[in-house]
């Protein structure tokens, strides 16, 4: 799905814990989520801090949208 969205010319961040799989299929921008079970969550934090944590992760994803993989690299990956 990532690749078809990219093919349409829309920058997309794939947020997942299985970053190797995403890299394997050829995604360009990959961000490791917090867990397979809660990609954008961190249940160990109190509710308020979890919202902050999530906002931080979304901000990181947004920043990656403005960036490109390094020269010679296929994907920009934040683990």
């Amino acid at each position: 799905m990532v690749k078809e969205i990219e093919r349409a010319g829309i920058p997309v961040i794939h947020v997942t814990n299985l970053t190797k799989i995403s890299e394997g299929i050829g995604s360009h921008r990959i961000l490791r989520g917090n867990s397979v079970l809660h990609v954008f969550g961190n249940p160990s934090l109190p509710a308020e801090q979890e919202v902050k944590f999530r906002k931080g992760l979304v901000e990181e994803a947004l920043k990656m949208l403005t960036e490109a993989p390094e020269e010679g690299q296929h994907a920009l990956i934040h683990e």
Partner: protein
Amino acid sequence: MAEKIRVIHYINQFYAGMGGEDTASVGISVKEEPVGPGLLLKGLLGDNYEIVATIICGDNHIAENTEEVCGEFLEIVKKYNGQLFVAGPGFNAGRYGLGCGAATAAVTEKLKLPAVTGLYSENPGTDLYKDRAYILQTENNAAKMRKAMKEIAAFAKRLAEGEFIGDGKKEGFHGSGPAIDIDYTMPASVRGVNMLLDKFYHRNFRTEVMMPNHEDIPLPVLDKPLSKIRLAFVTDGGLVPKGNPDNMVPTNSKYFKNYSFGEAERLDAADYEVSHQGYNNAFVLQDPNRLVPVDAAVALKKEGRIGDVLTSYYTTAGVMTPMDVGKKFGEGIAKGLLDNQVDAAILTST
């Protein structure tokens, strides 16, 4: 009688009888006997082989810490003086397949021991490791365990006994198998000519060049600053409105859907459920923003950090969904995003 060949077998928490998704995060444990499908393997390997250890590891644990977990596997194989390593088979199970491929590649490359697993062609672990390990072709369905294990056992015995192994097409493994050791003391020109002669005389030869098999799509770039973009969310984590109005299936999806959350500033747990049988949904059910982070995006919009957030999200369940179906979903979603003047997307995968 000669000493038995010492076999190490790796399986996941499900095959070890520890549970399904609820226990998928358990760490490594070792049993000094065959467990689950290992009993079948033991019978098929026969009397000259002994499963001295079964490594059991939760699928989430190995998928999230692949390198580290494989390192621990190697220590276990060494500790038990393993002489043959068998993983799975993992059929079409994504995280387990990743574990089977990674572990088999690690044992092959680091310990130089005979190692084999079996996976379905579309298992993500297959593409990642088929050129680094022997991954036999299996069906996508664990009901074929007996057939798959029979082939794995036969192949494992040939490996352990040092028999000649032909190419993947002939032998029934994916890709090109373990990477070949290239003798760099011999100039490339000589290696090339030798390979050509082998081909000419119909002798077996293996290429040194691995071709990537994914299609390269140009890198899309934003044409406006973040503060002007409209952002949208896509997920394959199966988040659907309460009551699952479109009967979205939890596996082998046939379609994706686009659901509106309107002017909501966050997704309310009371309004959603999950139709996805491939992970423990408890954390997402508790707070759907953990999968589709609407709360964070709306807050960022209010702060002017991004221009707009599409008030609906795209969803499907990415379990056991074939690659070509996923591609079709992607095409449909991309069209929807363009129709909605979306500039960028965040896609979450569980």
